[in-house]
C-alpha cells in the first residue's frame, strides 16, 4: 500500500524511529561495553520524532493548500528490528547498520518528495539523515572494536 497523505508519511517516519529505538534498547541489554552509546541512539530517535512532528505541524497548511502528496511504498523501508536470541553481538550490530541505511534512504527520499513544501519539512528530513550518517560511523567503530 502506497502512502500518499502527509499524515501517513509522518506517521511512518515516527514508526521507523520508534521501532529502531526499541531495537537499540534491546541491543543495549546484551552489550557489555556499549550500552550507553546504544541507549543514546534510542534517545536521539525520540528527539527525531519531535523534530519531524514540529516540521509537519508547522507547515501543514502548506501541505494542504499546495496539493502535496507523498508516494512512499513502506515495503521499500522494512526494518528487521527483532534481535534473535541466538544471534551474536557482531551480527546484531551489522543489523543496526542495515537499519540505519534504510532509515537514511527513507529520509532522503522523503526530503526529495517534499521539496515543493516550505523548507521546514525537507530540511528536517535531511538533517536527520545527516545525523544518522554520523551514527553509521559510530556503529562502524563499534564493529571494529
Amino acid at each position: 500500500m502506497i502512502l500518499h497523505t502527509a499524515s501517513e508519511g509522518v506517521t511512518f517516519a515516527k514508526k521507523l524511529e520508534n521501532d529502531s529505538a526499541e531495537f537499540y534498547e534491546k541491543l543495549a541489554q546484551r552489550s557489555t561495553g556499549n550500552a550507553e552509546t546504544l541507549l543514546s541512539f534510542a534517545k536521539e530517535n525520540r528527539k527525531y520524532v519531535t523534530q519531524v512532528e514540529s516540521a509537519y505541524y508547522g507547515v501543514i497548511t502548506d501541505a494542504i493548500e499546495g496539493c502535496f502528496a507523498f508516494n512512499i511504498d513502506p515495503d521499500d523501508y522494512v526494518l528487521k528490528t527483532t534481535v534473535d536470541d541466538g544471534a551474536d553481538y557482531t551480527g546484531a550490530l551489522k543489523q543496526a547498520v542495515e537499519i540505519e541505511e534504510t532509515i537514511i534512504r527513507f529520509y532522503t527520499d522523503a526530503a526529495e518528495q517534499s521539496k515543493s513544501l516550505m523548507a521546514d519539512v525537507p530540511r528536517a528530513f535531511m538533517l536527520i539523515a545527516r545525523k544518522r550518517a554520523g551514527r553509521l560511523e559510530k556503529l562502524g567503530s563499534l564493529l571494529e572494536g
Partner: protein
Amino acid sequence: MALLEEPIKEVRTLKNYIDGEWVESKGEVIDVVNPATYKTIARVPISTGEEMDAAVEAAKAAFPDWRRTTPVARARYLFRLKELLEENFEEVSRIQTQEHGKTIDESRGETRRGIENVEVACGIPTLMQGYYSEDIAHGIDEWVIPTPLGVFGIIGPFNFPFMIPLWSAPYAVATGNCVVVKPSSEVPNSQTRLAELVEEAGFPPGVWNMVHGGRSVVSSMLEHPDIVGITFVGSTPTGRDVIYKKCGETGKRVIAQCGAKNFMTIMPDCDVDRTVAAMMTSFFGNAGQRCLSAANAVIVGDDDTFYKNFVEKVIVQIKSIKIGYGLDESVQMGPVRDKEKKDRIIRYIESGIEQGAKLILDGRKDFSIAGDYPGVCFLGPTVFENVTPDMRIGSEEIFGPVMSIMRVKDLDEAISITNANAFGNGNSIFTSSGKSAREYQYNVTSGNVGINIGIVAPMAFFPFSGMKDSFYGVLHTQGREAVRFFTESKVVIQRWF
C-alpha cells in the same frame, strides 16, 4: 491503516459559555451526527433569545474593564490561548474530523490557520497604534486613536467549524471588544472546545461568550441594540438578504462573507502535472465544501489533443482519490456534512444531466468507501464535460465535489465568463506565461486571485477578500482590516493656550 482515536467518546449535551460559566440551555436539543459513521456524537441546544440576551449583557458588562486592560495585557491572554491551542492541536483537529467529516490532514490545516489568526492578533500593541500629525495649524496637533466599540456577534458556518470564528474573535478581543460567538449547530463541538481553552487561558468572564443555536439566536443577535457589529460566514441568501440587510437597518457594522462559484482557468501552456495535482485539492478537498473550492475548470484553446490528454489525466487522478472516514490517515476525501447537503448536490448533478452536460464521472455511484461505513453522507467526485455558463451547474454554488469542465477559445473569453458570474470569491489561472497571469489578475473581478494556486486562502495577515455576491460589507476579516473593523477612529485635535 488503523483509525486515529476519536476524541469525542461519549454523547453529552453541550452548554453555553456565558459570563465565564458553563450554562445549560432551556432550548430544545438536537443531535449532532458524525457524517462518516452516522453515529450521534453530541446534543446541541437551540438556545433561546433570553440566553442570547444574557450573553450580550455579560459581554456589555465586561467591556469597560476589558477596554481598560492594556493592549499588552490583552495580547498576553492571546499568547496563552495560542500555547493552549498548540498543546491541544491534535485533539482539536480530530474533533473537526469527527463532527464535520473532513480528512485529518485537512483538519490539521484548519487548526493551523485558526492559530495563525491568534498569532497575528498577539501583535495588537503595534497593530492598534494610531497616528499623529504635529502642527496641523499653528500650535495645533491632531491624532487618531483606534478605540474599541463594545460587543460583537460572530456567526460561524458548518464547513470550517474551528477556524472561521478565529478570523474575527481574536482581533475583536485583542482590540478591547467583547464577543458572543454562535457556532453552527451542525458542528458545535469545535467551538465548545475552543471556549474551554479560552476559559483555561484565563480571559475575564464576559469577554468571550458562546451561545449555541439556530436562526432564532441569529435573529436575537441582529435585533439586539447592544451588539455593535456582526461577522458572518455562510450562504449568499442569508448573508445578503438577512445579515447585511438587517445590520443596515439596525446600524451595525457588518462583514458578510458569502457564497462562491470559482472558475479555474487552465491555459495550454500550464505545467500539466502540477495543475492536475492542484485541481484535486481545489475541487475535492473538504469534499468541495469551501467557498474557495474550484467549481468550473475552464480549459482554454482549440487544441483538441491537449484537451483530451488533460481531461484523461484529471480523470485518472480523480479515480485514485481514496474516500472514507477522515480519521483514517490514508483517506483523501471524507463525506459531505449531512444527508440534506448530499441530496442537494445530487439534485445539481441531475440538473446537469437534464440541461445537456456530459456526465463522465458519476459521484452518485462511481466510488467505493474505504472501511465499513454507512453511505448516508458519502459521495464520490463527479465530473461533467460540455458545461456552459448558463447551466445551473456552471453558474450556481453546488458546495460539493463536482467539477464542471468548460472550453473557451482564449483568455479573454475565460475572463469574460468568470466575470459574468454573480460571485467573485477565489478564481485562479494556471499558466507559465507572466503576461497571461498579469492580464488575468488585472481583469478578473475576484476578491482572491490565484496564479498557479488552486485554493486561494489568504494567510492571517492578509484580508480574506471577496467581491460581488461573495461579500457584503467594506472591511474584511483577518489581519489589519479586522483590526480596523473592530475599532472606531477617534480623532483628537488639540491646542494649549
